């Protein structure tokens, strides 16, 4: 909905305030009809879990890939204590950006999910199916990521970076979960078109 709803149009919603309502109107989401309130929010929690799980895997991978940065002070200008302790890295900014991207991904995933349910003729059944799938993908890919990173002995280069093959191996659970999500959405949209 663009602008304030009918009930509050008029006094106090002009100019900047009206603009604010326009922007918020773009962001706002609504519960799809045909899905019980509790079921919808349970499915939203599963969708958020899926987005957070994948986003976190991507963030940790990015932290490993970007990892160390060139030192601001040349090593020969450092004391022995400095050489032992100075390890500049990109990880903090990568983590901050990663968190913002995760929030954006959560927002988009919920929008896509709500839109799918809103169009679906048997939305309640789809909500149960989708919630189970999202939760399953979140847990399975997160678990696989953790097991992979624990089970595989990684050979980091002298620069603290991980070889491409190892990065690919760690990215596999997240990519698989993303593909499964895409496949599910294609199938769900087909199902929603097929059923009257």
């Amino acid at each position, binding site marked *: 909905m663009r602008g304030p709803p009918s009930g509050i149009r008029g006094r106090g919603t002009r100019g900047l305030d009206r603009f604010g309502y326009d922007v918020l109107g773009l962001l706002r989401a609504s519960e799809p009809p045909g899905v019980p309130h509790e079921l919808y929010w349970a499915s939203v929690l599963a969708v958020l879990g899926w987005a957070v799980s994948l986003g976190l895997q991507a963030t940790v991978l990015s932290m490993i890939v970007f990892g160390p940065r060139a030192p601001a002070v040349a090593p020969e200008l450092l004391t022995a204590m*400095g050489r032992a302790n100075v390890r500049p890295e990109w990880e903090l900014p990568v983590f901050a950006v990663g968190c913002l991207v995760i929030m954006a991904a959560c927002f988009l995933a919920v929008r896509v999910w709500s839109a799918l349910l809103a169009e679906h003729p048997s939305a309640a059944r789809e909500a149960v199916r989708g919630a189970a799938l999202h939760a399953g993908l979140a847990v399975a890919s997160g678990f696989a990521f953790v097991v992979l990173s624990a089970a595989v002995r990684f050979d980091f280069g002298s620069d603290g970076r991980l070889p491409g093959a190892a990065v690919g191996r760690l990215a596999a659970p997240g990519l698989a979960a993303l593909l499964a999500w895409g496949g599910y959405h294609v199938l769900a949209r087909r199902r929603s078109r097929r059923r009257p």
Partner: protein
Amino acid sequence: MSAMRRAGRGAADAGVVLLIFCTLATPAISFLAGRVFAIDGFFHWDHFVMAPALAWRHGMALGVEAYSEYGVGWPLVLNGLSSFVPFSHQSALQLGIFYGCVVHAGLYLLLVALSGSRMLAIAGTALALFLGPFAPSVARQGAPTLWMWPSLTVLRSPMDVWFFMAVSFHARNRRARSAILAGALVGLALLLETDTGLFLAIVFIVYGLCLVLAERFAVLAERAPLPRGSRRPGLVFAGAFAAGVSVLLAGWAVASHGALFTRPGAFAAGWITGMTNTTGIGVGALPFSWFLQHHGTELGWPLAAVGACLLAVAWTMTRLVHGRLDAKSLIAGCVGLYGVAHWTVFVWRTSPLRLASSAIPLAILAVMAVGAARRPRADPSDPRTSRSGHRPVAGDVIGRTLPALALAASLLLLVSSPSFQAYPNLWRMLRAGLPPAGIALFPGRGEIGGLGPERRTQVRTLRAVIRDVERRTRRGERVAVVDPHKTLIFVAADALPWRSSPSWFANTWTLADADRLARSLGPSGPDAVFIRSRAPSRVGSDVWRTLHDAVAAHYAQSQPIGVFEVWERRR
């Protein structure tokens, strides 16, 4: 509620608080201080509070003349309490542990308010103790206690429990005084600890924004907005801001001995230096690759922790844009955001120990999640719904079982932690008796005890150095102690240190810094210098060599004290 029932609940709360004190406080504080001295030499306490507190005590302005890495508040608190307890490392340790007990007692009360279940609140407090002071990683590092690193304890984030208490009251009742109290607590948090204070400030701003936006999204969704409480929310938040700024400015003025008003730029730069000094060139950072190589099997726990915090934030954001933000979701989002911000402490130096600092936000979120899961929302149209709003089906069985399961699991985790088993609290004393008295560094005050006979020579030397430093400073001499124990020596002698930096060796990262230090020992240097005849550590050997050469060039050697050479200015 009957008076009898109320009294019963009050007695139960008092009992839990007593249990928390028995678990976290120690009757063997001298022994614990001795263990910290033996393993760490109070290195981390010197940086955290002792060196800036000593400098302030002797008239140096924090932030301008003396470096205070973490914040300027704790040094003031320690000095304020020195009228009642000795100004010493052991007192600082004792103060920290006592405050830890108070914070965990506060956490219990906050969890009771948030979950409405005492059983869940005890479970959450036990979980916070397990993830924080009694984290298994502490024992795995061979440390006697997490209190060896004050920056990983509740002292690093001293106001979070009280802040979330004020915010949860405000989210429910919208009273102006709760918001103003929260603002004052943010100011106090910024004063005590710069970085975590900034985290709380960000959380409070986001909280205010969410309240404003929640009203608008509710209007857009054509739903009843949250209760407003005050007709002028802007005025309330302006009051909260003013309260925070007043607390902060008053604290800064005291910490800087008034330099805040005469040299505001220098003070501001010095205040923020604590955060930027190490991050600028990457001192102390540990990359994630290091964590994967050495603690790869432990990755699940940190990921689950930050994932839970991010999920809470995402949940709040989603409820907000649906126009369905309720008080509990808002609090969960704020705690989650604070937890994510705290995770940066771990990202910066990816050591498992650092996860201990996010124990409290995680415990709050865990209790809120279990609390939400145990109360199935009743559908009023469902004929099975009782008058109390509960649905007497499977949900109630889960609701009854979950808190008991959570309590059993968290208590089991706590008592099975090797850090808990090794900690000299009342329970261990009852089981194993008092630890050996050993040698005390300061036998007169009974401080820093439990030291083994192998430390006899070191103790004798340190006592002699302290006596000599005390004698010289009383004569008006300026004395430099170029040693890792410098702050301990000056605190014991209660003397003004030559240079306020907590450490000569550990904080000298570049050769240029080492040369600068060496020049400071030149013609305008102190009257006497105490320096060991050999480098105190391998990594500090080049700095020691540079400083020793500078001392030898400008000073004449006097009678040594044990391993310490004593140099006096050439006349």
